[in-house]
C-alpha cells in the first residue's frame, strides 16, 4: 500500500470521459481531461509567503505542546477487537472520571474512531495527546438500563471497534455470548453507570441507544484532559504508560 503513495506524479489521460457540449455552430467542442497526481513530499520547497504566515502560529503552538508529560513503555496503537491504545484510553477515562464524579462508575467505553493517533514509545508530549484526541468532547456519566447495556455490547460484538474498561465480553458470530461488568456477570435486573464522551452519549458512533439513557451528570472536562491528567498522574508516581491485550474482548469460534 505504501508504494501507492510514493509514486511519482503520473499523468493519466481520461479520454472516454470527454465532456461534449454543443456550440452555437454545428461543430462540437470537446473538453479532454488529463489527470496528474502529486504526492507532497520533501522534494517540494516551502513557499516562503506561506511559511512566513505559519511561523508565529507554529511558535506559539510549539511552546504549548512541546511539554513532556509522561513516558510510554511501548507504542500504543488502535486496532479492531481489542487494542493497546483502546485499553489504555478506556482505563484512563474510567479512572479519571472517578475523580470527577462522586457516585459509582462501573465501566467506560471509547470508540476506535475517536482515537486519531498512536501514543509513541518513550517521552509522551501534550502534542501526542492532542493528536490522539483532537476532539473537544466532554465527559458524560450515564445510567444504562438493561436494554441500553445490552445494545452497547451488541454494537461492540458486531463492529469490534469499541474499547471498554472494567468489562469483559465473549463474542461468538459477532454476538456477545457472555458479558462481565465490574467483576461480575451482566445482570438483567439492574442498571450500570457508564463514563463516556458527549459525542457518543448524544448518539454518535452508531450509539443511538445512548440518547435514551439517563444522564447522571455532564462533567465539564474534556476527554483529552482526562487522558493528559492520567498520564501526568502516572508520571508523578514514577509509572510508565503501558497496556496489554488482556482478553477484554474474546472472540471464540
Amino acid at each position, binding site marked *: 500500500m505504501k508504494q501507492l503513495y510514493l509514486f511519482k506524479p503520473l499523468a493519466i*489521460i481520461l*479520454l472516454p470521459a470527454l465532456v461534449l457540449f454543443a456550440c452555437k455552430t454545428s461543430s*462540437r467542442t*470537446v473538453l479532454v481531461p488529463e489527470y496528474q*497526481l502529486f504526492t507532497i513530499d520533501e522534494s517540494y520547497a516551502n513557499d516562503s509567503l*506561506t511559511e512566513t504566515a505559519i511561523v508565529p502560529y507554529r511558535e*506559539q503552538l510549539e511552546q504549548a505542546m512541546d511539554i513532556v508529560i509522561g513516558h510510554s513503555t511501548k507504542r500504543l496503537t488502535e486496532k479492531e477487537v481489542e487494542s493497546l491504545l483502546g485499553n489504555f484510553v478506556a482505563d484512563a477515562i474510567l479512572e479519571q472520571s472517578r475523580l470527577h464524579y462522586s457516585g459509582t462508575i462501573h465501566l467506560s467505553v471509547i470508540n476506535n474512531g475517536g482515537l486519531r493517533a498512536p501514543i509513541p514509545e518513550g517521552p509522551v508530549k501534550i*502534542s501526542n495527546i492532542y493528536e490522539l484526541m483532537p476532539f473537544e468532547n466532554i465527559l458524560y456519566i450515564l445510567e444504562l438500563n438493561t436494554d441500553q447495556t445490552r445494545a452497547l455490547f451488541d454494537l461492540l460484538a458486531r463492529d469490534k471497534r469499541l474499547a471498554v474498561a472494567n468489562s469483559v465480553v465473549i463474542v461468538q458470530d459477532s454476538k456477545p455470548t457472555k458479558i462481565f461488568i465490574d467483576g461480575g456477570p451482566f445482570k438483567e435486573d439492574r442498571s450500570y453507570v457508564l463514563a463516556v464522551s458527549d459525542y457518543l452519549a448524544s448518539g454518535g458512533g452508531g450509539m443511538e441507544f445512548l440518547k435514551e439513557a439517563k444522564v447522571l451528570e455532564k462533567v465539564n472536562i474534556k476527554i483529552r484532559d482526562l487522558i493528559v491528567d492520567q498520564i501526568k498522574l502516572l508520571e508523578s508516581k514514577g509509572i510508565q504508560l503501558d497496556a496489554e491485550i488482556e482478553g477484554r474482548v474474546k472472540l471464540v469460534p
Partner: protein
Amino acid sequence: MIDQRRKFIKRTIAGSIGLNLLGITTFGDIKQSSDLTILHTNDMHSRIDPFPDDGGKYAGLGGMSRRAQLITEIRSQVDQVLLLDAGDIFQGTPYFNLFGGALEFKLMSQIKYDAATLGNHDFDNGIGGLQEQLPHAKFPFIISNYDFSRTSLSGQFDPYRVFQKGSIRVGVFGLGIELTGLVAEQLYGKTRYIDPVSVAKEMVQQLKSLDCQLIVCISHLGYQYQSEKISDRKLAEDVSGIDLIIGGHTHTFLPEPQKITHLDGHSTLINQVGFGGIHLGRIDYQLTVGSANLTQSSKTVKVNN
C-alpha cells in the same frame, strides 16, 4: 500543434479501447498545455505542517507551505486554475484546537483557493465557531444541500457559483453529508440537511441554464459505502450531467479518477485524494473543437464502455 494533439488524442483513444475497460490510459510524465486546470484537496484536517517524522505511514508527507509551492509552480505553467477543496478543513492537529481554524482559512486564502465545501468536522466548534473564522476565508464556501436559514450562518454560503476561466464557464455546486449521528446536535443546531440527489439534479439544471460547459460538484458525501447511504458513486449513478465530482470524507485515496457512464452516454468522473494534504489532484481540460473524426471516436469509446 493542434494537429499533433489530435493525432495524440486519436492514438490514445485507440489505445484506451484496447487497454482497459475503464478506458483510462496511463502515461508517464505527459505535459500538455491546458485550457483549464482543476487542482483539488480534501480532508486536510488542519494539517498545516507535514506529518511528524514518527515512523508512521505518512511520516514527512504533506505540509501547506510545500503545497503552496507546488501550486505556485503549476500557476506559472498554466493560465486558468480552479483550486477546490471538498471539506473537513478543520480538526486533526493542535493548530485547530488552539486557533480554531483561523490559520487554515488564512493560508487557503493566501494560496488562492477558489472555493471549498463544508465537511462534518467544520462544525466541530459549532455554528458559532465556524462563523467566527469566516472573516479569515477570502474564498467562498459552496454548499447546496444545507439549509442554514434558521441559523446565524444564514446567507453566508452559496448554493452554487459560476467561474469564468478563460473561455470556459465552470459551474460548481457543493454537497454535504447528513450531520445527524456524525456531529453532536448542539454543534450543527438548526442546520437542515436536504437530500443530495434531488438538490444535485436541480443544480445541474440550474448550471446548464447558465451555459456552464463544465459542471463540478465538490462533495463531502464520501466515496462509497456498503450500505445504501448516499455516496459520490451513488450520486454519479443517480444524477446525470455532473462532469466531475471532487470528493472527500472517506479519506479515500484514488490513484486516478473513477468514471461512471450513464445510459445517455454522459460520463461523470469522481476523484478523491486521501487526506491531510498528502496529495494534490490535478485535472487538465483541453478545449478542442471536435472534428467529425474525433466526435466519432468519442462515440465509439462511449459505446465500448
